[in-house]
């Protein structure tokens, strides 16, 4: 039951925004998202750390096609639901200093998207998964299209077509699997898991699904929609995309690709890992010649996601655990970073690195928050980035030590570009543009404080979160080991 509530509460609250008049929209949207977060916490407290999906919902939906509304929450889902419900209120709150035209639609779309995301992370039926997958895409398309920057029409069009193409590959794969199910066909994921297709077919399925997810994450070389879209989208759009939506791709790897095509993973996984690792180094290098801070963070995100994807694809306990943890950490950090960039842009009307500098002199608080989030992002011990990175490296090392050494370059290159960005924006002398720079206001502090708390919590005591996903991951490994 709680699963249904978690999925549909945001949808209903999105609808509930329309009759409301006046300026209360923001506050109302925030209130709804906080309620959703509390509901998710309730679920988390009732959640038992075992491998089985809990809070199951299983009702026939389109009976003639064997499609059920089947959803449930296991450890991995729980972690991502927490991430989503934790970030959405912050993202809504982060817009309090922005004035958007047509705010009703804006906030309704955010909540609508949340509904889709919650659905993706709980669906246990292939068809349902696909529906929610697309349901999350449509609102973000409109958010980028209606509130984006100068070139939004061209860029969002490309983004939409690109990701839709990926989704179609997934649809083809799902349909094929559906037709392979014995007896009365079904989209039930458990039925898909027990198909045991032959090697060649699994190879095809692997690639169809991998490309679908790789576009979403994005993994090199399917990433070219990402920097443009991140740069041009409104800040909240960027946060939704990078903080939550890209996790759909990684989640898909674990939920669909690995259990359905284990032999495909065995045969082709190394290519996917190599692509991910190339992406790490490639994106890091590109990041430090960027002049636009937002673009720089966009590329850094490609590098970080590459590491997660490589670690997860090694299919080791540490790699998977690290991947799960790092998904959460990356979501928190990247939202923080994009928010800080938004703050800078609102106050100075620029994001060009060389135009900024000396902000720490007038806004020490902002500089301190930026410092903490930056350190989290480059994975300093005792911040959230470290534990995940360490586990990921351990996973990759077991797979291949050389791969680990190369992907390890990210801790050097990451330090190079992040420190450069920090130094050029925050340190140094003030200039004409940064001469007047008011420090944080209340609503901005309220966004950054939870983020910083999370950074330290994950860095110092990640155990509850690791325990949450561990049984599920171990179960996954044993299922596939058979």
């Amino acid at each position: 039951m709680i699963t249904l509530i978690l999925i549909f509460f945001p949808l209903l609250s999105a609808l509930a925004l329309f009759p409301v008049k006046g300026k209360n929209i923001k506050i109302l949207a925030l209130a709804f998202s906080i309620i959703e977060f509390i509901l998710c916490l309730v679920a988390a407290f009732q959640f038992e750390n075992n491998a089985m999906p809990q809070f199951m919902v299983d009702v026939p939906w389109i009976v003639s096609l064997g499609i059920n509304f089947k959803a449930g929450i296991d450890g991995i889902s729980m972690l991502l639901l927490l991430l989503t419900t934790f970030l959405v209120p912050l993202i809504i709150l982060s817009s309090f200093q922005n004035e958007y035209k047509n705010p009703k639609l804006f906030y309704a779309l955010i909540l609508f998207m949340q509904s889709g995301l919650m659905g993706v992370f709980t669906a246990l039926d292939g068809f349902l998964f696909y529906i929610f997958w697309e349901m999350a895409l449509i609102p973000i398309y409109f958010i980028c299209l209606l509130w984006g920057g100068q070139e939004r029409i061209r860029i969002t069009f490309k983004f939409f077509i690109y990701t839709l193409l990926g989704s179609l590959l997934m649809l083809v794969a799902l349909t094929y699997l559906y037709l392979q199910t014995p007896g009365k066909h079904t989209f039930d994921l458990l039925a898909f898991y027990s198909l045991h297709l032959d090697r060649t077919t699994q190879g095809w399925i692997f690639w169809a699904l991998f490309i679908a997810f790789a576009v979403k994450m994005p993994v090199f070389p399917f990433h070219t929609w990402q920097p443009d879209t991140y740069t041009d989208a409104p800040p909240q759009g960027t946060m939704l995309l990078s903080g939550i939506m890209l996790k759909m791709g990684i989640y898909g790897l674990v939920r669909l690709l690995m259990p359905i095509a284990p032999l495909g993973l065995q045969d082709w996984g190394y290519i996917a890992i190599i692509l991910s690792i190339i992406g790490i180094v490639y994106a890091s290098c590109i990041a430090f010649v960027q002049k636009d801070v937002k673009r720089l963070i966009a590329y850094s995100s490609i590098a970080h996601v590459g590491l997660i994807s490589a670690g997860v694809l090694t299919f080791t306990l540490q790699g998977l655990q690290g991947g799960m943890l790092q998904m959460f950490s990356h979501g928190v950090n990247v939202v923080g970073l994009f928010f800080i960039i938004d703050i800078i842009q609102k106050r100075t009307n620029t994001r060009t690195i060389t135009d900024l500098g000396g902000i720490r002199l007038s806004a020490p608080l902002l500089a301190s928050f930026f410092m903490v989030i930056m350190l989290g992002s480059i994975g300093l011990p005792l911040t959230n980035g470290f534990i995940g990175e360490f586990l990921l490296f351990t996973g990759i090392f077991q797979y291949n030590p050389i791969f680990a050494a190369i992907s390890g370059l990210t801790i050097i290159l990451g330090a190079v570009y992040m420190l450069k960005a920090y130094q050029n924006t925050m340190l140094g002398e003030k200039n004409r543009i940064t001469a007047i720079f008011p420090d944080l206001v209340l609503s901005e502090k309220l966004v950054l404080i939870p983020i910083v708390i999370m950074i330290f919590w994950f860095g110092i005591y990640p155990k509850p979160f690791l325990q949450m996903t561990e049984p599920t991951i171990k179960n996954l490994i044993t299922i596939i080991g058979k």
Partner: protein
Amino acid sequence: MLLLVLGSNYLVMFVGWEGVGLCSYLLIGFWFKNKEFNNAARKAFVMNRIGDLGFLLGIILIFITFGSINYADVFSHAKSFSSNNPTLVLITCLLFVGAMGKSAQIPLYTWLPDAMAGPTPVSALIHAATMVTAGIYMIARSNVLYTLAPVTLSFIAIIGGATALLGAAIAMTQNDIKKVLAYSTVSQLGYMFLALGLGSYTTALFHLTTHAFFKALLFLSAGSVIHAMGGEQDIRKMGELNKLKATSLCFLMGTLSIAGMPFFAGFISKDELFSVAYEHSQVFFGLLILIFAMTGFYMFRLYFLVFNGSFRGTEHQKSHLHESPKTMIIPMAILAILSVVGGFINFPEVFGGNHGLSNFLANVIKPAFYTGEAGLSHLTELFLMLISTLIFIIALVAAYVIYVKKSVIPVSDEKEMSLIYRLSSNKFYVDEIYQTIIIVPLNWCSNMFYHFIENSFIDNIVNATGRAMVFGSNKIRLAQTGSIGFYIFAMVIGIIMMLLFNLI
């Protein structure tokens, strides 16, 4: 730092390790308005991170090999490995890469002199007492592993020796008081690694301790000098500062100790290293004689230039000269005393000492090749001490003759320098070499990735796919002519084709 030392497993050590790295980054960049200081801070952080990658991979390999990262488990498991087991060699090498970064060894040493940008007490802290010695500590802590990997030990000895030599060679011609001390630190760290590499971990820790005393003292005294000079750091503009009695006395104590005045702390710890080297290899022994001489020389050069001769600064600075307040003098005095007597914690047997430190550490640290100084007769030991005293005197006299008798002031014009002098004063162009072989190509690569591969290649393929679609659609659109005759014709062809396929 305490976390680093007190932790009982490698991960906790790493946490402390990165923690001190971060602190030094923040401290070096303390005056954050200055771009150069910020760059130095960033350089320090990034170079440390290069080492950290090695360290991290080492920890991961330890975890995978031994299934644990607790010292106790790892060391007890390690005993079952044979000597020079490839995995162990790899582990120890990876850990050593970490130590190279943190303890400023070749090739990752260039951040340390630049780190002088920070406030002087910071220099004292990171250069003498804490951060840079973390690498030494880590290797001494893992001595069980290193003993089983003699290949790595020889490698460490070579790197340590080379760094000691290079550091000393550069220090001889620097004109910035803090830079001299910084390169001297690099050189002294080289000693310690040499000691580690020769398998005498205790000697390294002993020298680490005495070095912490006298180097902290030297930095604080230097800070006091700079304070008195109103921020001036160029020793060519100093001189006659023995007016500042307390400071000059403290500085002298530090200098004597580091240069190896008999029975001062530095003498005793260096002597221990000397006998270790004597026992193991003539090459290192010869190298050490040379480096000891250079150390003595550059330290006295520094001392004489700063405190003797006539004052060479501006009138304003002269009137500004003053002794530092008590809060600065007292810590210096304490360190000065320690620099003199600190050696007694591991006083050699030959003078009735009992090797307190070695015994204290004996449970944790087993020397790689031999035990104590039992291998050398007391006579040899005395002989070695004599040699090192001689070196000390020669260095002292040489420096005295050049900088006091002849009152030579280092020139600043490059043309007047000899080739070697020029090389040394430009730090053998190492920074420039790094610039050319690493940073420039990296930037070039990044730009190429961005402009050619990213924008012109990958993105073009993506866009070309889109354009091909549009192009194709435009062509196919032409088929929609609107002529009924054509449609019927196409339909008939289609039906015939279908029938044909069915027949086949």
